[in-house]
Every structure is written in C-alpha cells, then in structure tokens.
C-alpha cells in the first residue's frame, strides 16, 4: 500500500518538476493529540527547493503546495509544515 508520504512526493514531483523535496512524517510526535489518528499519517513536514518559487511570495508558495496536495488534506492530513525556498535562497547546498 502506498503511504501518504509517497503520495505527497508523487504529487509534488508532478506539480513542481525539477525540485528538491524532503518529506518527513511527524505523525508519531503528535500521537494522542487532537487530529492524530491511530494509523498515523496525519502530520508532515516538507522542505522544498524549487525554481517555481522564484519571484513568488510566501503565501503564494504555500498556496501552490496546498493546491497540489488538496486530496491529502481532504483525506485526513491534519498538519503540513512547509519550508519553501527558491534555489538562490537555499545556499550552495540547495
């Protein structure tokens, strides 16, 4: 069965080609907290470095990622922490 993390990865790859994408499933850290579910897969952190973000403001970047992941929010994803950088903001290791 596909995990939510792999679906997130696939959706972001499709929406933002050529990006560096790191996804962490933080659900275990929120076990028992409101929004957490027994099966986990509720809380994620994503770091993305994408040329698509160049010239975009913070809200616009987040909204673009939210739009790409709308199905996951509808399907029970509760929290998504985002760090969204354009390549020139990420430094030499970006």
């Amino acid at each position, binding site marked *: 069965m596909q995990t939510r993390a792999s679906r997130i990865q696939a959706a972001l790859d499709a929406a933002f080609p050529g990006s560096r994408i790191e996804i962490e499933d933080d659900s275990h850290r*929120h076990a028992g*907290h*409101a*929004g957490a579910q027994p099966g986990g897969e509720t809380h994620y952190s994503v770091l993305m470095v994408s040329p698509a973000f160049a010239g975009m403001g*913070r*809200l616009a970047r*987040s*909204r673009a990622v*939210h739009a790409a992941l*709308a199905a996951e*929010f509808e399907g029970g994803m509760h*929290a*998504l*922490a*985002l*760090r969204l950088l354009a390549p020139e903001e990420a430094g030499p290791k970006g």
Partner: protein
Amino acid sequence: MTNPVFERIETDINANPVVLFMKGTPVFPQCGFSARVVQILSHIGVPFKGVNVLEDMEIREGIKAYANWPTIPQLYVKGEFVGGCDIIMEMFQAGELQSMLKEKGIPVSAEA
C-alpha cells in the same frame, strides 16, 4: 461568499487589529503550532485577540474556506490574512513580521 460564517469572521477581524484563530486559548494553547504563534506575538509584545476554533465548529471549518488555507493557526492583521505558523515564524526570524506590524500602526516592543 454566501457563507454566513464569513460575516462572523469579518466582524472579528475588522473589530480587532490582530486576531489569531487558534486551537485553545492564548493562555492554554492546545496545539504546538498555535502555541508557537502565541509565543512569537507575546515575545514582540503585540496584543491580539485569540479565537478558539475548538469551541466553534462553524468557525473552525469556515476560517479554512475564508482564507482558502487548510490549516490552523491563522493570523490576521487589520483584516488581512498574513499566514500560518511557518510563515509567521519565517517572517519573525527575518524581522519582517515586526516591520509589517509597525507599518500597519501596531506597536511592537522595542527590543524585538
């Protein structure tokens, strides 16, 4: 724009210069992300109204549609949506939150 809860939201964000829609209250936040924004606002000495979405299902769902933003907390300044936890944190670290608030005529404590 026919959603009646939008009217309630607008009443709140127009009556109060800084409003945080959050889980729990400023004194007892019930979510780590909400707690972090409360901490930042307190650190820079900005008075704000906290709206506890856990006490009001209608607002909890309505605020997501209102801002077209799928998560809580949500910060509004002078009626305008600023962002959620990540954006507030990034803006604070860059000093942009403080300068934006000052520009909008909201006092920020000197050392912040």
